């Protein structure tokens, strides 16, 4: 009675079983009978095994089998905006949505984690023929539309319901798939970032900076990490007082210190100045101490990421900005970066312009009207000014926006990438994300809305996407300065939404510990670091001391076509990007091998031809060196 079929397609296998088991919720032992014909005809229950997509060998995690009801294979039409309607089978699991066309050559498939869905909705009422169509809006700049030809009510309903259930587990009081994903990798990515080790790398603690344990139990500030670096002269008691003066208790703490000039990058949230111009002498003392810690400069720059108008408006709500009267020797600079709502709107417009079709003749003005690249420019320009003050001006800087968890990490982490070559390596970049974004409480859960069906949530905003875009812009401008390639950045963004890894879950370090995320989920870095060669930029040259100052003119900024427009088959590069990188690597290896062979040969010849010059050939031929 059991008819089943195993389908292997792009490292995923479907095992469908025709045994009737409507009532039972227990996993079905599938009979591995291969059936060639007739299997479409009967509505089937598909038992789906989640197969890890990153391992080439098929590995079945039998423990996590869900019974998912789908309609029969022939019923679903995917309205592809590029090739037109495609008919095929749609499968939904607790992790992914899988569509495979049956009537088209070459085989066309869709395979996406449910985490990228931001909205699932029915479009229009059922037509007279009984078609029901529903649209899926995705977080990764695409929309999908499916139409059911199947008139049988119970079945089409179930697909919709299954989608609603598994795409938004948080709204359904279920856990995210990351908590069920049990892939084992050779490396444990949760160990990538050790705050103390990172501070030690920067030479901290040192005479004027100490590591405070005041936030060990997240009592001072629940969105900050446990380890904080503050000036030696400020006591924990003073820090507590400052925390009541800074929004959300996010006091000024050190992010990075220049190894030579001792100029520091300090991050914070806005001071609670309010309309009455409240002051806090401990806060003033803290900023003075930050300035004093750097003997090279008698000034300190405060970079407020917001437009000055918005900063001023915040005074109405008790916030505001540092007055130059209260803070001696401080210069306040506004960086004019807009708030999360403006950014969300810009992303929405961008999606409209790039998906599904591009209007060639008005492409440029349409792109301009999204303001997306202008926002990127402002963020990069802000980071550039910060980096310039630290590097060229040898001055310490304090960076804040309102709460210090959106624009602030954008600015500090970009400035850090410009200033410190360590953050341009693959592991260094992981540390940077773990530190500036995750430990300092960028609200990933809120901004991305993991597993949350409330797609209109005003807290969602593409802040992290913008940051990665900025990094991408820098990799474009400095193709040899980054150890990672474009595929690495795209992987990070894809996994940001997929909810396969625990890395980007929750809003803060405290929450992640409370939910025991590191214990129950796999870190993205476990996956990445287990196959580093995929993510290596073959052109990378490590220059420890180089500071990068990107050009922020719009003329040098490009839309990240390979990310935003990657769903358009016409815009896809001929070969996948990382493939191209691999070829480059191979080419380099081949060349280097040739060089080495020739060198060896030359050395042998020299050695054999003139024994008195035996020592010179090794030095005379410089080993392969590269200059940028």
């Amino acid at each position, binding site marked *: 009675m059991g008819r089943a079929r195993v389908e292997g397609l792009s490292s995923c296998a479907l095992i469908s079983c025709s045994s009737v088991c409507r009532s039972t919720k227990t996993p079905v032992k599938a009979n591995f009978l291969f059936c060639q014909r007739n299997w479409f005809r009967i509505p089937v229950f598909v038992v789906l095994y989640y197969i890890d997509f990153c391992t080439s060998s098929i590995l079945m995690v039998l423990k996590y089998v869900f019974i998912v009801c789908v309609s029969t294979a022939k019923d679903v039409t995917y309205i592809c905006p590029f090739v037109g309607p495609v008919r095929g089978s749609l499968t939904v699991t607790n992790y992914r949505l899988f569509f495979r066309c049956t009537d088209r050559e070459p085989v066309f498939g869709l395979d996406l984690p449910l985490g990228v869905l931001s909205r699932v909705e029915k479009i229009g009422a059922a037509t007279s023929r009984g078609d029901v169509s529903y649209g899926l809006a995705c977080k990764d700049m695409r929309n999908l539309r499916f139409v059911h030809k199947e008139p049988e009510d119970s079945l089409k309903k179930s697909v919709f319901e299954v989608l609603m259930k598994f795409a938004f587990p948080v709204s359904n009081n279920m856990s995210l798939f990351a908590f069920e994903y049990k892939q084992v990798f050779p490396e444990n990515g949760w160990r990538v970032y050790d705050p103390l080790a990172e501070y030690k790398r920067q030479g901290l603690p040192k005479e004027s900076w100490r590591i405070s344990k005041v936030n060990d139990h997240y009592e001072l500030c629940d969105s900050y990490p446990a380890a904080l670096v503050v000036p030696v002269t400020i006591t924990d008691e003073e820090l507590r007082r400052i925390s009541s003066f800074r929004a959300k208790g996010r006091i000024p703490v050190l992010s990075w210190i220049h190894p030579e000039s001792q100029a520091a990058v300090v991050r914070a949230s806005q001071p609670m100045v309010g309309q009455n111009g409240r002051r806090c002498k401990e806060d003033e003392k803290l900023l003075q101490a930050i300035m004093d810690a750097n003997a090279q400069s008698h000034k300190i720059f405060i970079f407020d990421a917001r437009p000055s108008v918005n900063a001023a408006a915040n005074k109405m709500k008790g916030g505001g900005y540092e007055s130059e009267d209260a803070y001696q020797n401080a210069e306040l600079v506004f960086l004019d970066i807009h708030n999360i709502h403006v950014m969300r709107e810009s992303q929405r417009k961008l999606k409209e312009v790039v998906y599904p079709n*591009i209007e060639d003749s008005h492409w440029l003005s349409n792109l*301009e009207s999204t303001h997306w690249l202008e926002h990127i420019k402002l963020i990069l320009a802000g980071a550039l000014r910060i980096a310039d003050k630290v590097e060229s001006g040898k001055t310490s800087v304090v960076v804040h926006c309102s709460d210090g968890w959106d624009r602030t990490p954008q600015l500090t982490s970009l400035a850090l990438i410009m200033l410190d070559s360590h953050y341009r390596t693959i592991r260094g970049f992981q540390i940077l994300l773990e530190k500036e974004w995750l430990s300092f409480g960028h609200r990933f859960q809120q901004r991305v809305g993991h597993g949350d069906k409330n797609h209109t949530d005003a807290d969602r905003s593409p802040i992290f996407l913008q940051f990665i875009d900025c990094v991408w812009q820098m990799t474009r401008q400095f193709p040899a300065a980054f150890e990672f390639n474009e595929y690495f950045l795209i992987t990070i963004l894809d996994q940001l939404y997929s909810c396969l890894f625990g890395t980007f879950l929750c809003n803060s370090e405290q929450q992640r510990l409370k939910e025991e995320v590191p214990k129950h989920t796999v870190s993205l870095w476990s996956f990445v670091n287990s196959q580093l060669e995929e993510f290596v930029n073959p052109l990378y040259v490590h220059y420890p001391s180089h500071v990068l100052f990107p050009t922020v*003119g*719009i003329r*040098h900024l490009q839309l990240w*076509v390979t990310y935003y427009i990657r769903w358009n088959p016409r815009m896809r590069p001929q070969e996948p990007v990382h493939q191209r990188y691999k070829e480059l690597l191979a080419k*380099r290896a081949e060349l280097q091998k040739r*060089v080495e062979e020739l060198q060896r040969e030359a050395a042998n010849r020299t050695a054999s031809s003139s024994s008195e010059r035996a020592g010179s050939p090794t030095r005379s031929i410089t080993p392969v060196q590269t200059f*940028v």
Partner: protein
Amino acid sequence: MLSLGSVGAKSTKPSFVSYVTPEEIKLEKEPPKIEKHPDLLPGEVEFCCANPILKYTQDDMSQRGIFGTLFCTNFRVTFISDEKSQEETTKTFKNKLYGENDIPLMCVDHIYGVYDEKKKLITGGLVKNKYPSKMIIHCKDLRVFQFCLTFTKEEDAKKIFQGIAHHCLEERSLKCVFAFSYSGTPKMQRKCIILDKMQRKWETILFDSPEDWTQEMKRTRANCRLVTENENFELSQRLPKYFVIPSALGDLFSYQGKGFPIWCWSHHSGCALFKASLPPVTQEDGDFQKHLDIMLNAVAHNYLYSAKTEDLSESLPTIQDIQQSYNKFKQFFLIENSTDFWLSDVKWFSSLESSGWLDIIRQCLQKAVEVVECLEKDNTNVLITEEEGTDLCCVISSLVQIMLDPYYRTLMGFQSLVQKEWVAGCHAFLDRCNHLHQKDKECHSPVFLLFLECVWQLVQQHSPAFQFSETYLTVLSDSVDVPVFSTFLFNSAHHRESVMKAESPLAQSSPLSCPTVWDWSVQFDSKAQNFFFNPLYSEKVKHEKAVRKAHKPKHQRQLSLPSTAFKPPSKKGFFKDETDSLKKILRVKRLSRWMGSPDSPAATTRGFYESWKQRPLDYHGLLLPCLDGPAVRVWMQRYLRWIPEVHIMGGGSVAVMTKLMELLSQVQDLKRVLEQRDSSQAVKLDHRPYIQHRLLSFGSSGRLSSSFPFAYSRNRSFKPIIPTGLMQSLMVTDSLASQEDEASSFVSLV
């Protein structure tokens, strides 16, 4: 200085900075006037000079500059700094003819004068009057020079201003072009003749002899007839000396040298591309229609009896449109100061779009793809027509050949193609480039540049398929305005020959010989020429390369799309069977109409592009460009190289190129070392200095700017360029901007 912009709540907008003070201080400090003279080229004559002149440096916006002497010669306007130039010696990419402070007269685009803080375009009338305090020169290679004339004696200033204005703006005769005085000296003549011989020994085929054409026909296996009757330009002065026509075409003397198809290239299937100069079909002229039919039949007879014709003047922008669009476009790159730069940065994309330049590029590529589709997929002969037959026909036919024939993607192949289609093909370079500053604006148009732009798009999208680099294309586009080479100086082959004969210095013995632009050694040493080669070029197997070197480049093509209608050609059908021929003609016409269908030409080739894209990419096969909005880009290297605000220190594509070239040159060096060692005596030669020298030359430059190898930034301190006036850039007027910064913190928004 750097904190300009929105510092604090107040944003300071840099206005026209007073430039008088800093120099006055400097003047006092610098009393010695050293007489310096430019190193003149052979035949170069100095007209006038003035000192001291202040040349503003573009690197910062503080309106500072360098003092020096400004000269005007019959070749260039040149500025020689009073200070010792430290840059020149370290350059790895130095043009031997003109340096960074030289402007060949032909290269001058516009001159502006600043009179009482007002910028005015200098035209004939203004020259007579008062001289301006500041002279701004816009060059055709997009450099901008600003000279302050107020420090020099009034008469000197007047003289130099009028001299420059006269020589750069006034209409003049071809004889005055520097090339003739340069090559005219007996010494240079002898050198040129030697160079010419060497050139022929190299690989660029000049297509000025019947052999070159026969060779090309053999290479493409063309089935056409070489015409030598025009050797003395008896057929027409507008036609090439030698050309190839369909073998079915009869006596040429009856056509008055116009309106018959000229062979461009043959596809390996046998079908071919032809071009013709035909007036646009306006009225139902019976004779004309008959003529057209004969032409089409001749073309169709070439292969399989099918032909399509395409009137380019109907479906592509006119040369005036091209000129207008480019004039708008180039303005975005002629930037005089930082403030302008950041102001124009805000509306960058919409300005680009409004110029329409990228759209024209897209249209040309699109048209070329359509023709490629006919040749490749339908195996149909194609005849492209245009009134003159030497403008857009050249663009399209060259592009088609580059897309279809990998030979033209090699450096020598590309140069041969330019010779074949453009130089021998009688493109009116002199008129189109306006080398003589003629007032008649109708005939100026950057058609050749448009072609290079299209090629750049292809290079950008499929760089491993091309042996040459974008630097090569940029240099070639600059060389058009260097009045030393004969390549781009004439309107036709006849024009060239007659002028060369008339200008000969050695009596009637032989015509004057000028170097061609392909003689890159005239401009660059061999090390600099390395930059012309694309280190990522995926070469084909070696024996084929050897074949190409031996002047027998073969048609190397991969199996392409299956030909849709392969029927044995009816060899004797046409003239015998009248009714059949009529049918054919009808079919031909129908096809031609279909091809030029105005409704969305993009849609027709979309399928062709997509089916091509699905096949594995072969860099030695058919190459098609992606034409979607984001894929057509601005040629950054050419247009942005002189603008300091966009220079990326230590970055840009040069970072990659340098690294790859480094690696390649090391391999080559080591090979050379081995070769030396193979010869018995060579053991004593120490190879050490050579290699180290190589490494040094790259190493000393440390972090190159993205504008390398063109502009050199004096800004060695790696100061970032911080935009000014950010607040103006983005005024979000929406209510969103004023919303709470963090929704969660204060209010909950639904």
